[in-house]
C-alpha cells in the first residue's frame, strides 16, 4: 500500500496521511460511540423519568411494553417516527423544517467536549466550557425559530418566553461557573476534573456551594424543566414552542431536550462533583474502589443529578414568567457575582 501510494506522492506525505487518517477514524468512531450511547441514554432517561415520577405519584409508570415496560422508549420512538408529519398550512416552511434540526444538533454537538472518563473525549479543546455555553445558546435559536415559524400564537408566546429565559439564565450559569474556572485555572473540562481530584475535598461542590446552587437553578431553567418550564407551560401555552410539531420533528425536540438535560447533568458532574474521579479520602479509606472504572462514577453522578431533576418535577409547581425573570436577575446573578468575589479573594489571600 505504502509502495503504491509512494509512487504517486512523496513517502513522507503518505505517513502523514495515514497518521491523520487513523486519527480521523478514531475520532469518527468516538463520535459514533458517543452519539449512539448518548441517544440510548436519552431514550432510557425518558423511561426512567416516567418510572420515577410514576412511583412518586402512586402509579406504576410504563409497564405494558416489555418486562416492566422496558421496551417503552423504543415503542415510543417507532410510534413517533411513523406518525403523520403535519405541517400547518400557514407555517414558514423552510424555518419550520430547520428549527428542530438546529435544536437537536446544537444539543448533540455539546457532547463533543465532555470527558466521560480519563482520556475519552471527542474533542479535547481548551475552551470546553465556553463551547458548551455557545452551543446551549445556539439551541435557543431552534426554540425561537420554531415558535416563530409555526405561525401559532401559543407557539410564538412560548418561543418568546424561552428566548428571554435562556438568555437571562445563560448569564447566571456562566457566572456560576467562573468560580470553578478560577479554582481550576483552566477552561478545559478534563483539566477541571484533574484539578478537582487534587483538591482536598475532591469536589468543587463543597467550596463552591454558592456557585453550585446557582448552577443547579440555572440548569433547570436552561433545560426548561419544572419549576421553570414556562416556554412549554402546558396549562398556559398548551405545549409552548412545539405546539404545532408532530411526528419525528417533535421527536427531535424531545430528544434535544433530554440531551440537554444529560449535558447539564454531565457539566455538573464534571465541574462540581469531580467527574470520573472520587475524592481521595474515600479511596484512601477504601482502596478497593480504585479498581472501579471511572465511567461508573461519572454515570452515577450524572444519574443522581437526573434523578434530582425528576424528583423536583414531581414535587414543585411552576413559577410565573415575571417571577422567573426576577429570580434570574435579582437573586441568581448577584449570588453568582458574590461567589466570584469570594472565590477570587480567597484565592489571592491563600496564595498571597
Amino acid at each position: 500500500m505504502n509502495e503504491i501510494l509512494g509512487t504517486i506522492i512523496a513517502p513522507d506525505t503518505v505517513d502523514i496521511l495515514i497518521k491523520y487518517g487513523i486519527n480521523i477514524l478514531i475520532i469518527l468512531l468516538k463520535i459514533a460511540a458517543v452519539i449512539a450511547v448518548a441517544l440510548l441514554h436519552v431514550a432510557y432517561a425518558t423511561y426512567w423519568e416516567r418510572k420515577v415520577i410514576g412511583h412518586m405519584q402512586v402509579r406504576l409508570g410504563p409497564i405494558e411494553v416489555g418486562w416492566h415496560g422496558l421496551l417503552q422508549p423504543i415503542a415510543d420512538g417507532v410510534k413517533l417516527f411513523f406518525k403523520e408529519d403535519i405541517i400547518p398550512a400557514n407555517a414558514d416552511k423552510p424555518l419550520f423544517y430547520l428549527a428542530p434540526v438546529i435544536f437537536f444538533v446544537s444539543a448533540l454537538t455539546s457532547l463533543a467536549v465532555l470527558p466521560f472518563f480519563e482520556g475519552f473525549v471527542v474533542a479535547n479543546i481548551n475552551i470546553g466550557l465556553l463551547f458548551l455555553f455557545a452551543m446551549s445558546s445556539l439551541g435557543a435559536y431552534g426554540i425561537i425559530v420554531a415558535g416563530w415559524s409555526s405561525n401559532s400564537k401559543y407557539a410564538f408566546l412560548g418561543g418568546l418566553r424561552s428566548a428571554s429565559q435562556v438568555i437571562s439564565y445563560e448569564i447566571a450559569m456562566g457566572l456560576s461557573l467562573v468560580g470553578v474556572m478560577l479554582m481550576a485555572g483552566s477552561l478545559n473540562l478534563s483539566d477541571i476534573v484533574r484539578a478537582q481530584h487534587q483538591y482536598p475535598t475532591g469536589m468543587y461542590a463543597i467550596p463552591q456551594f454558592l456557585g453550585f446552587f446557582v448552577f443547579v437553578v440555572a440548569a433547570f431553567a436552561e433545560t426548561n424543566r419544572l419549576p421553570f418550564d414556562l416556554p412549554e407551560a402546558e396549562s398556559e401555552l398548551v405545549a409552548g414552542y412545539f405546539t404545532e410539531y408532530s411526528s419525528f420533528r417533535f421527536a427531535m425536540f424531545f430528544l434535544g431536550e433530554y440531551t440537554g438535560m444529560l449535558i447539564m447533568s454531565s457539566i455538573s458532574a464534571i465541574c462540581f462533583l469531580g467527574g470520573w474521579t472520587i475524592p481521595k479520602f474515600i479511596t484512601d479509606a477504601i482502596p478497593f474502589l480504585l479498581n472501579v472504572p471511572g465511567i461508573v462514577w461519572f454515570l452515577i453522578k450524572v444519574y443522581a443529578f437526573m434523578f434530582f431533576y425528576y424528583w423536583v418535577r414531581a414535587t414543585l409547581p411552576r413559577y410565573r414568567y415575571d417571577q422567573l425573570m426576577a429570580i434570574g436577575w435579582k437573586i441568581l446573578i448577584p449570588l453568582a457575582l458574590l461567589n466570584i468575589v469570594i472565590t477570587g479573594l480567597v484565592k489571592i489571600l491563600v496564595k498571597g
Partner: protein
Amino acid sequence: MTAGKFIRTIFFIEILQGMALTLRTMFTPAVTRRYPKVKRPVQPGFRGLHALAKNEEGKMKCVGCGLCGAYCPSQCIHIYTTEGEDHNKVVDRYEVEVLRCVYCGFCVEACPFGAISLSEHYEYSGYSREEFYMTKDMLLANWDKYFTGKKGERYYKDFWGPKSEDFHGYEGQAMFKGIKNEK
C-alpha cells in the same frame, strides 16, 4: 421576618419536606389498577346494561304496562303492544336505545313486576349504533347471560327492591357501632 422564618426560607425547608414526601411515596405500593388485565369487581346493585327478566317458566315477566317508558327521563324505552287471544296484552316489541340511556335505574323503580333490570355488565362496544338498539330478544338474552346462577339471582333480588322493602321494623338497619382501630 422572624429568624425561624428566615432559616426556613434560605434552607428551603418547606420544599425539602415536600420532596421527602414524594420520595417516601416512591416506596409505597402503587394504587393503579391495570384495567383490562385486572378488573375491579363491581359493587352489588351496579347499574349496567339492561335485561328483561324471565319468570320460573322461562317466560318474559313484562306485561307491557308502559310505566318504564313513561318514567324514563331520557325517553329511550319504546314498547309496542297488541291485543292477543282472549284479550291479553301481548308485548310485540320492547326496545331500549342503550346509547341514549342515562342509567338512572328509574325504569326498575317504575316496573311493578320487576320485569326490567340493570345488570352488572358495563363494558360493551360495537361498530355501529344499531348494535346498541336493544330489541326484546337481545334484552332477554342479556337476562340469560347476566342473571343466571346464584350470583345473578342474589343480585337481582338486591336490586329489585331499591326502596325500603319493609316498613314494619328497622332492626337490621346499618348503624354506627364504633370501630376497633380508632386512631
